[in-house]
């Protein structure tokens, strides 16, 4: 039983990270109906921004507190991934808006190749390990919970709440939802559609940046190819939860995290990704709109 709870905690931690990345996929898909393939690599840029900021802080500023350091790292990651995502949207997606559906998908794949190779060229292909930042571990009735796991879950909750507030309560969120429902009508009603879409990209990317900083804190290592697997899994999570639905993305992320850690705990660690993808396929075959998504109505 302790083992099960232990694995559940690990799964929830992992799932929070996936869920945060998944929000970016689901929002962009919701608003312009496009799979933003470069989002996983924007997350990777976030981990690298946090890594470089960590090195700057440890080498230049002596004796800085861990909490302050984490905050600065997270802020850097947010700024960098937002900036990159904004630029990518401007140069690679906006000119193709209104073009046919596969065109932005191809530029997104192209951008994903560009980003991972850019980091490989500029930062080198090797793994970049950093010394552990948060080492405190609690023991609760035989179950060990590390402080960094608690931090990740807490930060996820805070970010999600802030996010939920922006999307449901502010005029910006209303503009986003209007654009999502009918872009032309929203434009007629005075919403700056291009700006709203840009902001959506930036919001998704800032969550990916936070996820990147936390990923670095949790695993303590960054690589240029880190964007692909978490990216695909987060996308899987978004689809599993019902693409376009924000609670769905978080739920999907948690489910993927749980499946992954429980499968590797009880069955085989080699086939954990196979299990994730198989469950995705099964869910989609029987419930194509995902767990919380609205079913798509086919019109003639």
């Amino acid at each position, binding site marked *: 039983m302790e083992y099960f709870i232990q694995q559940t905690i690990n799964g929830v931690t992992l799932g929070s990270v996936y869920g945060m990345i998944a929000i970016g996929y689901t929002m962009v898909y919701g608003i312009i109906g496009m799979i933003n393939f470069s989002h996983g690599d924007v997350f990777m840029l976030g981990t690298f921004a946090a890594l470089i900021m960590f090195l700057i802080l440890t080498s230049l500023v002596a004796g800085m507190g861990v909490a302050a350091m984490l905050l600065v790292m997270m802020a850097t990651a947010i700024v960098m991934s937002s900036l990159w995502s904004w630029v990518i949207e401007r*140069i690679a997606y906006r000119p193709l808006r209104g073009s046919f*559906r596969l065109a932005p998908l191809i530029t997104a794949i192209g951008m994903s*190749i560009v980003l991972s190779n*850019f980091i490989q060229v*500029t930062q080198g292909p*090797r793994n970049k390990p950093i010394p552990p930042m948060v080492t405190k571990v609690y023991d609760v009735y035989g179950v060990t919970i590390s402080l960094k796991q608690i931090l990740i879950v807490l930060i996820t909750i805070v970010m999600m709440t802030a996010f939920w507030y922006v999307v449901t309560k502010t005029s910006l969120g209303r503009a986003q939802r209007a654009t999502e429902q009918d872009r032309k009508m929203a434009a007629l009603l005075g919403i700056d559609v291009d700006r709203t879409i840009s902001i959506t990209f930036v919001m998704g990317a800032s969550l990916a940046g936070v996820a990147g900083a936390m990923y670095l804190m949790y695993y303590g290592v960054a690589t240029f190819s880190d964007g692909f697997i978490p990216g695909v899994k987060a996308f899987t999570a978004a689809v599993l939860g019902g693409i376009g639905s924000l609670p769905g993305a978080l739920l999907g992320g948690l489910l993927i995290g749980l499946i992954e850690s429980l499968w590797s705990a009880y069955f085989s660690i080699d086939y954990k990704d196979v299990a994730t993808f198989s469950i995705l*396929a099964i869910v*989609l075959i029987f419930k194509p709109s995902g767990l919380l998504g609205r079913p798509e109505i086919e019109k003639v």
Partner: protein
Amino acid sequence: MTAAAQPPRIPSDDRLKWALREALFAGLISFGMFVLYVGLETTQNIRNQLVLNQRWGLLAILVAIAVVGRFLIVYFIGPWFAARKAAKAAKTEVPTQSLLRRNIGWIALLALLVFPMAMVWLVGPQKSLKWVDNYGVQILIYVMLAWGLNIVVGLAGLLDLGYVAFYAVGAYSYALLSLYFGLSFWTLLPLAGILAAFWGIILGFPVLRLRGDYLAVVTLAFGEIIRLVLINWTDVTQGTFGVSGVPKASIFGIWSFEVGADNNFAKAFGLRQSSAYYKIFLFYVILAMCAVTAVVTIRLRNMPIGRAWEALREDEIACRSLGINTVTTKLTAFSIGAMFGGFAGAFFAARQGFISPESFTFHESAIILAVVVLGGMGSLFGIAVAAIVMIGGTELLREMHFLKTIFGPDFTPELYRMLIFGLAMVIVMVLKPRGLVSVRNPTAFLHERKAVSSAFTKEGHG
């Protein structure tokens, strides 16, 4: 940051001011983008700790490139593009195709037929290896894969992001069956195709109900599942170590290319031992396979099943109400596309002599799909051109030794291969969203056969 962002008709002195402002803005943005990633480099020191290395000069160069580039785009290239576009729109008559353009396919085929011989004649057998193998064979493999995927994506409009799975099935079918059962290439080539087609049906069947992007995700997942199984099923596939010593193909069992064999090709003809013969033979094999793919695609387009595919791409609901069985239509598209992937896979295994799951990543699927879309979906000629430009172009980077004299001796152009590939994908797509060849020949027409803009064809919703 393209011409699209430019407001129309600005007086020229204002335009200069505007261009300068844009350039300054681009400089600021690029400084922000690159300051951490380019300005600082993380390297490991002797004690294996990460340290930062400063590269402000490189950062300054990149920012300068961004500023100058943006200025040139806004001030010169943007207006030029707009003027050209206006001139093109003003022109009404449709240009008649010249003799050269109408027969370009035959000319290309002829050029390909003499290509290996010409190379041997020009640079000698040993040096021709590189050109025939790295350029000729490799590009033709991508042409074949892209033409196979074109059936699924371009004709039937089903977005498949896991096409590499069928390529892997074909490659592993040939490698494992020939190693374990000693069957020859020519027996296994059709078998690999059949197995891949069979997998196409297995994977296609459950996903038939899915549409559009959901289909894309599930095919991506299947592609990853196949790769992960290949990695983890170590008893059969030897996992990440890969399968080595895959037998070479022979000339229909009459002459062999294995060095020790009695019926060795070079020995039989009294020639000097060289691997060039095998590569030239492979070139003609893949050329023939490509030709078969092209002929089959062209013929299928004119058959009821091909027309059903295109109808499915245009409108699925109309298709169903006209009595077209969408299940069989989709499955045939999936399995025929997969079959060509399987053929190409078997060929790939015979050519490499070594295969590992590394060769069948999502990256590969993305490259194949990119070639299909960049070429202009549905256009065989465009796809071939895209394969030559994208694969051959990035391969050419390996040749650019003169860059070493500019950037210093430790500059390795190979490193930038994929980076430039990705950038090229983005730039080509932004400039020509409908692909390099954006003209289609409809299979059914009312009075006369004439090409239409591909803007009239739909891309399907899966």
